[in-house]
């Protein structure tokens, strides 16, 4: 492939949306209220829409026969490079919201910068996506506040979810080789520069929501190198089932 770094860089962005979209899609029909059900389905829909744009572009760059679906559904687990955060399960609505919130704040900052990419396709996808992600961020932040400043029970549940998922936040700001090369070419976003703002913004909302900001300084990583938690394998069995069981067919 002529531009393997760009290809890898796109997957690094898109895999996050793919896996988070899949997690949100699991909830359809099972939400705590009709309104949240619609919102979660909508987030899933937006994310998969973005995923298609990214993978279509990646397929074009690859320049061989591979399609968006091949990229989405026919890689091995070790080839998915999403951050560990997005693959964490829907333990309960608090985990779903905490995961979404911790990702949305990053996602919004990331897309804001990606709009300035020298790569016009990526810049265009970012511009289109940021409107959606701005809504996601509002939705998840509002729920952080509702749960944090709601009842004793909801406060304890959302605090617990934030504490558990906190360990996966640092990885958002790690760089793999392709990231560094793309930053050098003014195509990629230098995520290391987003970190301070990210924690400021997250901490501000948690504080407004009457929640404690976790103090732990121990973080997990591995997703960006394809070493995932044990949750991802099961998600992929479902995601890939049809493409694996019925190879080379049109749908």
């Amino acid at each position, binding site marked *: 492939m002529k531009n393997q770094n760009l290809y890898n860089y796109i997957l690094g962005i898109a895999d996050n949306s793919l896996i988070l979209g899949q997690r949100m*899609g699991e909830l359809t029909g099972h939400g705590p209220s009709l309104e949240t059900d619609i919102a979660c389905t909508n987030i899933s829909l937006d994310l998969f829409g973005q995923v298609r744009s990214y993978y279509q572009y990646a397929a074009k760059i690859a320049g061989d026969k591979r399609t968006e*679906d091949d990229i989405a559904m026919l890689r091995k687990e070790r080839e998915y490079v999403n951050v560990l955060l997005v693959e964490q399960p829907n333990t309960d609505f608090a985990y779903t919201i905490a995961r979404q919130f911790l990702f949305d704040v990053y996602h919004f900052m990331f897309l804001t910068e990606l709009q300035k990419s020298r790569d016009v396709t990526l810049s265009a996808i970012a511009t289109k996506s940021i409107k959606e992600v701005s809504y996601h961020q509002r939705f998840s932040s509002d729920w952080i506040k509702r749960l944090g400043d709601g*009842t004793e029970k909801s406060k304890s549940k959302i605090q617990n979810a934030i504490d558990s998922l906190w360990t996966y936040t640092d990885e958002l700001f790690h760089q793999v080789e392709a990231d560094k090369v793309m930053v050098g070419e003014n195509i990629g976003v230098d995520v290391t520069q987003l970190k301070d703002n990210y924690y400021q913004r997250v901490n501000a909302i948690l504080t407004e929501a009457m929640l404690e900001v976790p103090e732990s300084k121990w973080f997990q990583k591995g997703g960006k190198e394809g070493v995932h938690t044990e949750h991802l394998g099961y998600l992929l069995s479902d995601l890939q089932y049809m493409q694996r069981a*019925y190879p080379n067919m049109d*749908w």
Partner: protein
Amino acid sequence: MSEEQIKNLETQFEARIARDEKIEPKDWMPEKYRKTHIRQMSQHAHSEIIGMLPEGNWITRAPSLRRKVALLAKVQDEAGHGLYLYSACETLGISRNELYDQLHTGKAKYSSIFNYPTVTWADMGAIGWLVDGAAIINQVPLCNTSYGPYARAMVRVCKEESFHQRQGYEIMIKLANGTPEQKEMAQDALNRWWWPSLMMLGPTDDKSVHTEQSMKWKLKRKSNDDLRQQFIDQTVPQADLIGLTIPDPDLKWNEETGHYDFGEINWDEFWQVVKGHGPMNKERMKARVGAWERGEWVRDAAVAYADKKQNRKEKQAV
């Protein structure tokens, strides 16, 4: 009010309906009109909500990203339909929680078709093509029904349903023109969904209750048997076109009537499913009630938060 006054109001009311005027929430209406509408509209709303489950079952396993996006959008539309219909229902003075309660305790019904399992991807095609197809035939006349909020909700619902129906048929076309395995999958789905879809149009006319009154109120404009015939006449050529076989050996074109004759429907199965003994009745209610119960603390938190916010505003205002 005296009996005479009521009689008078009723006469005016029926006259308005006869003149095709819409009845609005603040208008006077007979109690029976209100109750019948709550029953029918809520049943319709519940069907949209329960209907999310069999299709939701394939979201994580959709075979392509394009299909996954379309399926998510479709199920989201169904949730949206549920939302309009519950709102329309609330205009008649019943709360959403009361409606949910009726659903969760089994007091209210929903369309029995959703008590069948979705066992292959082709079921997403069959549901769109057949189930939404039958639903549209039931629903299009309701765009002109007498109760304003219901009629307006149905205009929107029908527009989207018709899109879903085309989308479902398109899935079937793709499968029917695909590999032998795909074609087999499509035929199998048609085999399993055909008869339940015919049953969706309701019991035969001689077994159907409420019909006359419903006709007058434009809650119903054709009989179940007429609707069923319309569905069959419309669907058989669509199956022929893509080379799928309707699983009814008695099905044949009748030159004389200008309609398809068709075989006997297994009404025992229909009533069994209606009574709660279908393959998925228990699972559907378990999923629904489970989601509702697991969501209680979330809804409580939202209420508590809104109350606190309101209190703070009031304090600031003082």
